[in-house]
């Protein structure tokens, strides 16, 4: 039964296990009709672009619901549950509401920049999607310098945030955008250095190549590079402006940050772009650290792109989880964390990886011995460094702290004895 089903769908354009079959089919059609060779590039490029843009659009709508439901669950609330089954229609209602709202613009705002900022903020996230491998034959743009492209395109978002904050002519917006830039300057360094560890191990910057490396050596990169994963996850959640680190739009400090003055669909675009960016970053993490479309033997049974989407949502759940459970950092804490914690740890990781790769190349030992050894060494290093930084290097207790420290090191002095209550108690007896 199963075999019969497989033979029916195998290698036809409707074979969902590999969506690139469709463009192969079109290539054949063009070849039969003696069409020009470049036509297939145009057609498959358009098809891939439409696929990616519709995925992004769907994600932006669905994730409003996912995020609100999951955070609600974590905060012992129900979340949106009125509209449609499980509140599934809530995002559509939100979108309609945002579209109907009046789009206000401050009189002193500089119009062109103010309007261009939300658009420029949305574009990099969608651009990043183009280089991600969705399956063995499913990459829209195979870039030899894929990892660098990820870094380059994601650094453009900060400029859009700055444009939004500056053109609003509002001091809270300006605070927000200055914070974003300070944070970008700080967190770009650990991000780059931690990704360098991954690139060194894989020996390529091509994202498909990194996935194939993990397939070849039968190990997720997160096992080989736990410290880099840890650093990348934290740094990127700071760059994404998500709640443990959303100081750029901290409601309780600076109103709405850079999008204080935005309303209507312009605000909606910022909101959607943040969700899109979170999904894109989850996709990057699942490609670089969790094997992308490959999952041991599972990718022979399940289509690779389904595994990939599953992994993306797994990582996205981690982001929602941190958002739902952790309180917001202060700006000085966040910057000190980047410079005093993440950067030294990332450099340590890079030095170790460089030594390991050099040993691998020079000693000629087989990968079957070295990969498990490296997994053990790097896992131990990650555990030891994280523990050491938390316990040994945290500063002493201060009553009025000015520097970063951790909860476990705070030695709260006991309250003075109940003596103060005595007169009060005495007064009652009179």
């Amino acid at each position, binding site marked *: 039964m199963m075999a019969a089903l497989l033979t029916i769908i195998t290698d036809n354009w409707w074979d969902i296990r590999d969506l690139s079959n469709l463009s192969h089919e079109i290539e054949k059609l063009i070849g039969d009709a003696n069409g020009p060779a*470049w036509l297939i590039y145009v057609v498959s490029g358009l098809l891939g672009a439409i696929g990616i843009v519709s995925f992004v659009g769907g994600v932006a709508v669905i994730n409003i619901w996912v995020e609100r439901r999951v955070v609600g669950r974590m905060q012992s609330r129900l979340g949106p549950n009125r509209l449609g089954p499980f509140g599934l229609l809530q995002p559509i209602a939100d979108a309609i509401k945002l579209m109907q709202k009046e789009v206000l613009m401050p009189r002193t705002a*500089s119009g*062109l*920049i103010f309007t261009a900022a939300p658009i420029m903020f949305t574009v990099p996230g969608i651009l990043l999607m183009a280089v991600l491998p969705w399956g063995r034959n499913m990459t829209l743009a195979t*870039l*030899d*310098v894929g990892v*660098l*492209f990820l*870094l*380059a*395109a994601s*650094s*453009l978002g*900060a*400029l859009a945030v*700055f*444009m939004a904050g*500056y*053109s609003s002519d509002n001091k809270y917006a*300006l605070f927000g955008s*200055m914070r974003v*830039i300070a944070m*970008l*300057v700080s967190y*770009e360094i650990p991000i780059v250095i931690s990704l360098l560890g991954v690139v060194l191990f894989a020996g390529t*910057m091509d994202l498909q190549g990194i996935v194939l490396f993990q397939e070849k050596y039968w190990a997720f990169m997160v096992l080989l590079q736990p410290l880099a994963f840890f650093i990348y996850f934290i740094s990127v959640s700071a760059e994404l402006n998500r709640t443990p680190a959303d100081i750029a739009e901290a409601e309780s400090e600076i109103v709405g940050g850079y999008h204080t003055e935005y309303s209507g669909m312009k605000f909606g675009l910022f909101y959607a772009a943040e969700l899109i960016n979170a999904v894109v970053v989850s996709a990057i993490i699942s490609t670089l650290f969790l094997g992308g479309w490959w999952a041991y033997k599972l990718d022979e049974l399940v289509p690779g792109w389904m595994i990939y989407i599953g992994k993306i949502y797994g990582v996205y759940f981690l982001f929602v989880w941190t958002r739902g459970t952790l309180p917001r950092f202060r700006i000085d804490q966040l910057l000190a964390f980047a410079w005093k914690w993440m950067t030294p740890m990332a450099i340590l990781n890079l030095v170790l990886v460089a030594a390991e790769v050099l040993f691998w190349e020079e000693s000629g030992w087989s990968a079957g011995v070295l990969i498990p050894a490296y997994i053990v060494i790097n896992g131990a290093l990650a555990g030891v460094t994280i523990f050491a930084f938390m316990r040994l290097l945290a500063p002493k207790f201060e009553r009025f702290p000015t520097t970063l420290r951790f909860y476990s090191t705070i030695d709260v002095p006991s309250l003075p004895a109940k003596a103060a209550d005595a007169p009060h108690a005495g007064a009652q007896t009179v």
Partner: protein
Amino acid sequence: MINDTGIVVAFYILAATTVGCALMVAFVRELVQAVLFLALAFVGVAGIYIVLSADFVAVVQVLIYAGAVAVLMTFAVMLTPAADRKNSETAFWAPAAVLAGLVLVIIVFVSYDTTWKIAYRPEFTATAASLGQALLKPYVVPFEVASVLLMTAMVGAIVLTKEEEGEDA
């Protein structure tokens, strides 16, 4: 081939974008808008690199110039007290125009005087690996000297801005 229709069209679009944005940098009145147009011009140059099959250089162009340098410039603009003020008329425009005209004359003269060789567009090859090899093998000394120079600049900046010990800040 470099004479393919697509390549030629892409080149002219990118060149028009780059030159137009560069002109806007000079003509626009507001400093922040000038910085943003400069970032756009950087992106246009990156596109021209892609047309020339230099994907690594193109991505690095976006990463460093459009990402980092533009952000640093916006920082500088925000720290400039008079950044909000629109550029006003000054009497210096006449000598500046003469100087710019002379530069234009020189560039036009040189580009007519040179005998240009037609380069063929190479295949897309992996340039990143060979660039890395070149930087760490034959050119390791200039590479390291450049990094020492940057390190010195960083230490200098820290020394300049550091508060003296003991002085109550």
